[in-house]
């Protein structure tokens, strides 16, 4: 399984990547903002999931989701954020986000959310 992990915080990327690897997701491609994410995503070949932060410089997580959905990509996208205000959540859903992982989270919550967005490939 291949995951695109987008967060401007290197610390948060480390935490999530470590969590993903402990769930046997070995291929984690990291990007620090939406622009870098789009460049690394390319035509999307081989990617199974996008995990993205919301607030990032250059291109936000919301703009990234809009760009990916606008280009016709249908893979699951999960927002990892502290943002839970109703109007913001609605915006994200309208843009095509499949699920939310609210910070703070633990390994159990990460696994639960992954199993929800990737039901055909249940993690450990």
């Amino acid at each position, binding site marked *: 399984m291949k995951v695109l992990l987008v967060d401007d915080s290197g610390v*948060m990327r480390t935490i999530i990547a470590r969590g993903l690897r402990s769930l046997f997701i070995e291929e984690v491609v990291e990007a620090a903002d939406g622009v870098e994410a789009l460049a690394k995503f390319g035509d999307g070949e081989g990617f199974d999931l996008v995990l993205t932060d919301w607030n990032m410089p250059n291109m936000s997580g919301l703009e990234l989701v809009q760009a990916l959905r606008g280009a016709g990509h249908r893979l699951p996208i999960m927002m990892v954020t502290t943002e*839970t205000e109703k109007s913001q959540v609605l915006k994200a859903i309208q843009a095509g986000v499949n699920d939310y992982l609210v910070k703070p989270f633990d390994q159990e919550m990460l696994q639960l959310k992954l199993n929800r967005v990737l039901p055909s490939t249940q993690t450990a």
Partner: protein
Amino acid sequence: MSLCIDTQTTLVDAVNASVVDVFQMMVNEEAVVLEKGDLPRSSIASNVVENALTIAMGFSGDLTGSCCICLPQDAAIRWANLLIGHQTEEIDQTVIDAASELANIIVGGVKRRLCDFALTMSLPSAIRAGERNLVFASNISPIQFRYKFGECELAVVVALSQSSVC
């Protein structure tokens, strides 16, 4: 305008719950609430620059002001170690990034718990100083919260004013 009593009570609960939650969820450690009180004016603007790290985040909307997470050096280093296993004896960029993430998640949790208020929070800014070096406008009464995790302490200083009438 100062905070209404109800708002203060809600704020205290929100800060305490958010700090405890972040430590429990992110590093499986208990953050013990030590005390809460007004930041003593006598200790404000100390000439002694503490070897510490403060992460400041702004609030705007129904409540305006800032929330500062203040970590003495040992606490900042310990947090980075607990969070990602980072080993260092001094505050470096990774420690600053880890502390910024701590502030981001704590303040995000406070905002989430203050759901009756329309609030926007800013990105975190890091300052190489402790809470004794913080100064605030005279019309704001900062509230200080102290916590202990392991042998380390951290402080949260919230300085907010309320735009609406109580």
